[in-house]
């Protein structure tokens, strides 16, 4: 720490160069922060799922294939109820609300199980009673409601695409989710309303339930999948986490591609800083020799140069993080609101960015520092810069 003053003075020796390098690092780091935040947001809802012991039953041929209604009776029977409770039918409705760009999840569910199964949601008793009382009632997440101006009493018309029917829903309540505001982005309406519209076809997308204990999950998979194995509609019973993970798998290596951009950005930043440090050290040969003469060890020299480099990259990182936090966390801007209703720079992103900046600083200073520290004092003094 006692060398801090010297490090800063050294860095500011050529102001233009240092400012340019810091500016460059800041822009490059901003891309890294941006890319990491996008990844965090993509993974956020996948990671949320682990804790609630929820289990989904889907068609083994994939989600696009409906399940038979006959399975419900078995799932609500004693064999399954010994291991699980709160069985709920859940269909993805899809459809269009006014404009195809208005993308949010619309689920048809057995409303009587909603509070128990999705226990992280808070719904007032009065609103829940309204949901039970009216067939075309729906509830929406508070955050979603805010974005689209939904309030109690508002009618929402949704044009069907997967189902050949149009919904005429009325908002009877807003739910909140204290665990994660991202889960306040859904609309839930009644499965029996959808079934009525489709003429009682009893189409079931998935069945959900809550395992009594985490240990019951394996038993549930064995029982349910074993029973349907030789039927015309075999099932695949999965945990909520596995359920969400399948969408990641569908997206394929796009995610790896995004990560690679982050890696390349770090390489560019290291190169740029290394260039600066090489220039900076080259013009200070005499100065370094003088420092050595008055008693600084080669270790000191090495430290001073690395510290200068780290000062530059860290300042750049702090600037970009500051900007990102301001834009995304304070002003709550999102690059694509329909895909990322939230775009928050998370603490791990901040830590990784600072770590990456530190590493880039150290790596880029390594060669110049070694050269400077290893040069003989006489050579340094003799050299004309």
């Amino acid at each position, binding site marked *: 720490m006692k060398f801090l003053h010297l490090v800063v003075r050294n860095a500011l020796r050529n102001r*233009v*160069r240092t400012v*340019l*390098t810091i*500016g*460059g*690092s*800041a*822009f*490059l780091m*901003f*891309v890294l922060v*941006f*890319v990491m935040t996008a990844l965090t947001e993509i993974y956020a809802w996948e990671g949320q799922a682990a804790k609630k012991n929820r289990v989904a039953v889907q068609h083994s*041929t*994939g*989600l*696009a*294939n409906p399940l038979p209604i006959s399975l419900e009776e078995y799932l609500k029977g004693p064999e399954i109820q010994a291991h699980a409770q709160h069985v709920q039918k859940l269909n993805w409705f*899809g459809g*269009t609300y006014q404009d*195809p760009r208005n993308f949010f999840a619309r689920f048809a569910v057995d409303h009587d199980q909603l509070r128990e199964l999705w226990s992280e949601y808070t719904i007032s008793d009065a609103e829940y009673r309204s949901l039970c009382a009216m067939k075309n009632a729906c509830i929406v997440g508070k955050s979603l409601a805010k974005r689209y101006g939904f309030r109690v009493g508002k009618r929402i018309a949704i*044009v*069907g*695409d*997967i189902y*050949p029917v*149009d919904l005429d829903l009325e908002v009877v309540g807003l739910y909140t989710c204290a665990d994660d505001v991202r889960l306040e982005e859904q609309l839930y309406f009644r499965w029996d309303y959808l079934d009525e519209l489709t003429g009682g076809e009893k189409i079931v997308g998935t069945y959900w339930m809550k395992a009594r204990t985490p240990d019951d999950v394996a038993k549930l998979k064995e029982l349910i999948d074993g029973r349907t194995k030789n039927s*015309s*509609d*075999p099932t695949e019973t999965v945990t909520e986490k596995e359920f969400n993970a*399948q*969408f*990641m*798998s*569908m*997206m*394929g*290596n*796009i995610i790896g*591609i995004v990560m*690679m*951009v982050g890696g*390349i*950005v770090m*390489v*560019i*930043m290291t*190169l*740029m800083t*290394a*260039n*600066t440090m*090489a*220039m900076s050290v080259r013009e200070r040969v005499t100065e370094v020799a003088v420092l050595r003469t008055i008693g600084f060890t080669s270790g000191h020299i090495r430290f001073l140069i690395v510290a200068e480099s780290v000062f530059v990259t860290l300042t750049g990182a702090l600037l970009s993080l500051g900007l990102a936090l301001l834009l995304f966390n304070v002003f709550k801007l999102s*690059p*694509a609101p329909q895909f990322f209703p939230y775009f928050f720079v998370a603490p791990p992103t901040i830590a990784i960015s600072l770590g990456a900046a530190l590493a880039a600083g150290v790596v880029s200073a390594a060669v110049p520092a070694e050269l400077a520290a290893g040069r003989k004092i006489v050579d340094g003094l003799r050299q004309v810069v």
Partner: protein
Amino acid sequence: MAVPFKYNLRNLRVRWITAAMTVVGLALVTLVFVFWWALGIGMERALVGTGHPLNLIVMRTGAQSETNSMLAKKQAEDVAGLDGIERDAQGGAMVSAETIVIANVVKRDGGKANVAIRGVGPRARDLRGNISVAEGRWLKPNLGEIVVGRGIVGRFRGIHIGDEPVIRGRPWKVVGIFAADGQAYESEIWADGDDVRAQFKRDYSSLIVRCRDDATVGRLTRVLAEDKQIKLEGKRHTDYYREQNMAAMMLKALGTVIAIVLSIGAIFGAANTMFAAVASRTREIATMRVLGFSRFSIWLSFMLESALLGLAGGAAGALIGRLALNGMMTGTANWTTFSELAFQFRVTPDLMLWATVLSIVTAVAGGFLPAWRASRATIATALRGL
């Protein structure tokens, strides 16, 4: 009088380490840009251009994709009887009623992805005109035989020729691999329509209709839209695929934004390099001024030197992108159809050109201030300085 170009080349050679680092930095920025756009262009190529411009695709009103659509045999027959539909030599209507279902297939990395299975009849190939057998043979009806699109065969398990994958409770036999000029069909599995309808308990999904001429496409679209009884809508086959292109446009937009921010970062780096180049040549520049080179010539000379760095970095990045990425197979989910869309990275000559231009602009922007400073130096001061 212009400063000889050789002067710039020699300068770059003298300061080759700094120059090389700058070039590598610029090349990497270019590579990122090429990468995103190659992805976007590849995806676009798979979708835009798929289908035949004289074909009409008929689906249930409101269904956004074939996978959501459903139509009954009677409806299909009604449409086939409409006036203006092309007929073959035997007088049969050029119409193909198809059933598209989705099944998950295990990918090579162990995950699963949804693949569209198209149940087709005898006319499906005729109506596309570009479906060819790349390996093996075409499927025979009612035997549970399937042919797999070239785009997915390498990235999924158990769908090579001779494999018998179990899909929706029955084994199917892969008898061939088909190609479709890189179009979206190469991401599909094709099977016999009756086999698919029986196994998936489904009706028809869509009807592909070849119109006699371009005007008929529009006319039949209107006829279907106005007939409220039939509850079907028509769309030009090529438009249907073009409308699914949103993801590709997003990729390109995102790639551009990322490349611009990176380029701004690179401008700072290039400026640094050029400032150093100018600083170390202060006396040289003054000498040139004494010799009679104008301020403008010197400014131009340094700008050229920057441009040269940009050209080297851009060309290297674009070339590496072309060699490493072009033609590489990848895929992602097409959320409109809820199924896999396979496509190739496409590093086109146009893209390479634009990427190089971006790099040159970056380097020139970075070199502008240093070059200006060089041209402004006072001769006496510069010569006096050490």
